[in-house]
């Protein structure tokens, strides 16, 4: 009886009794959600345009962040290092296309997935060789990102907002809006969608697959860099960051692999859901549910909407 009370009633009582704390939890969840959404966005970009599930997206986040920190450590001013890192992501995009995917056009999806797994392990090895394996500190202040925090008086209590979190949310919103406009309104965006729908037909109207795939890998690289900076600012920059990529999986299941709005909404649901779950229901089972709750949410979702919230409906003619 007591267990049921703790499970079904007590959490909501707490939420109502301490609304300021609840708001704080919501905010923290929102910020994680924004970052999950950013990672998921990297996946969606590449999946949409090439049908490749890019296993390497997580390591690209690490690689971008390490490059930025590493270049700064070499004595480059922070902004120059940022531009140089963007250039490195561009070079990576070209190299990946020219050496791997150019040769794999029209191969089955599983082959492309294997190629990205290979790429992941190459980038881990290469990254460790160049930057070393020890954790580094993100150059948050040097990049002009705010580091303080502000406390707000709301609902009879204090809600503390880290400025870096606000910055992360703003940057994520700007990036997502820019990408959405780019995808829907421009010739290159149309070409991207065309390639996503049908490779052969896209080639026949004069779209160069190489060019389009380089653009999406570059875009995914920039998204990875943004994620790396924001995530790195909250913890360290290390190879352990790679696993946050797997946080994007439930987000993708929820939002659909081909939808940019899906990545955002999915990210927010997962971010907020797992934070609330951890704080209010976690103690019931001794805590630590944050690491798997997302997958449970995603699995339940799969039962009802296998194509995700915003994914294209799967219709198969028999």
């Amino acid at each position, binding site marked *: 009886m007591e267990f049921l009370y703790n499970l079904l009633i007590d959490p909501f009582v707490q939420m109502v009794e301490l609304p300021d704390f609840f708001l704080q939890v919501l905010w923290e969840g929102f910020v994680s959600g924004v970052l999950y959404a950013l990672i998921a966005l990297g996946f969606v970009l590449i999946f949409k345009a090439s049908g490749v599930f890019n296993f390497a997206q997580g390591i690209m986040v690490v690689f971008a962040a390490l490059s930025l920190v590493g270049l700064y450590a070499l004595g480059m001013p922070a902004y120059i290092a940022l531009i140089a890192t963007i250039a490195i992501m561009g070079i990576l995009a070209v190299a990946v296309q020219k050496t791997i995917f150019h040769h794999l056009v029209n191969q089955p999806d599983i082959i492309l997935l294997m190629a990205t797994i290979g790429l992941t392990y190459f980038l881990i090895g290469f990254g460790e060789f160049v930057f070393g394996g020890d954790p580094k500190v993100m150059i948050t202040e040097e990049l002009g990102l705010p580091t303080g925090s502000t406390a707000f008086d709301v609902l009879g209590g204090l809600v503390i907002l880290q400025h870096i979190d606000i910055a992360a949310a703003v940057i994520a919103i700007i990036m997502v809006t820019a990408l959405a406009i780019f995808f829907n309104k421009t010739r290159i*965006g*149309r070409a991207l969608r065309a390639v996503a729908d049908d490779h052969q037909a896209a080639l026949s109207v004069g779209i160069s697959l190489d060019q389009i795939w380089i653009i999406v890998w570059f875009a995914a690289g920039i998204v990875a860099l943004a994620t790396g900076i924001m995530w790195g600012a909250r913890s360290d920059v290390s190879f352990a960051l790679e696993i946050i990529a797997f946080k994007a999986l439930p987000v993708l299941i929820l939002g659909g692999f081909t939808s940019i709005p899906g990545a955002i909404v999915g990210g927010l649901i997962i971010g907020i859901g797992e934070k609330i779950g951890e704080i209010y229901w976690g103690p019931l089972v001794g805590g630590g549910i944050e690491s798997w709750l997302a997958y449970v949410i995603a699995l339940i979702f799969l039962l009802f909407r296998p194509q995700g919230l915003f994914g294209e409906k799967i219709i198969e003619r028999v």
Partner: protein
Amino acid sequence: MRAPEQEAGAGETLLAVDNITLSFGGVRAIRNVSLDIRKGEIRAIIGPNGAGKTSMLNVINGFYHPQEGLISFRGAERRRMKPYEAASQGIARTFQNVALFRGMTTLDNIMAGRTLKMHRNFFWQLVHWGPAAREEVENRRKVEEIIDFLEIQAIRKTPVGRLPYGLQKRVELARALAMEPDLLLLDEPMAGMNLEEKEDMSRFILDVNQQLGTTIALIEHDISVVMDLSDRVVVLDHGEKIADGLPAEVQANQNVIEAYLGVSH
């Protein structure tokens, strides 16, 4: 049989295929085939299933590269050309099993055909302002002309995945026309259509040829469809050319009759 050159009149050669051989592993899809396509004509490539018709189209369009033989377009020889290079030189095509961008509207599909006509670079595209926006409007005007031409005004904003098959084929033709091609390759444009749709499509093909002056190479499985439509017909069977000439000649050719009736060799 007289040489076809004497009968089809003037019209210089737009595309020439010389002694092409194409194999996939041990399978030889095309064996030593030569054919030419003259400016302004409707050239049909026919043959029974598996004759190598689509392979021939894929060779012309750059999807396949023949192991032997030469292809020249507008007098210039080409080597290992990629499909998008063929497109940029003025070769457009449709596909046997409609290859449209299913998630996009009719309008966007046709606009995708304008890709090569739009030149503003990446950064203008990114800001979507000034010259890039103006270019979009100009190309949109051209696309509207094509939409009028093919009478598909009503489905302008419909996602193509929802359209009936006959209309999808027409949208695919529209997308190819949006490229303003010199040479239009049609892979079984009438396959799977009912009689009315076939008649419509035949009329559009003739209109494209006569009003826009586009040279057309068309593949058909059904011999009767091409007889009224085409200026000259080449017949393939088992990867080899067995006849080439005016429709009436080809129809009377003994080899062709045997190939279609399946007389044992």
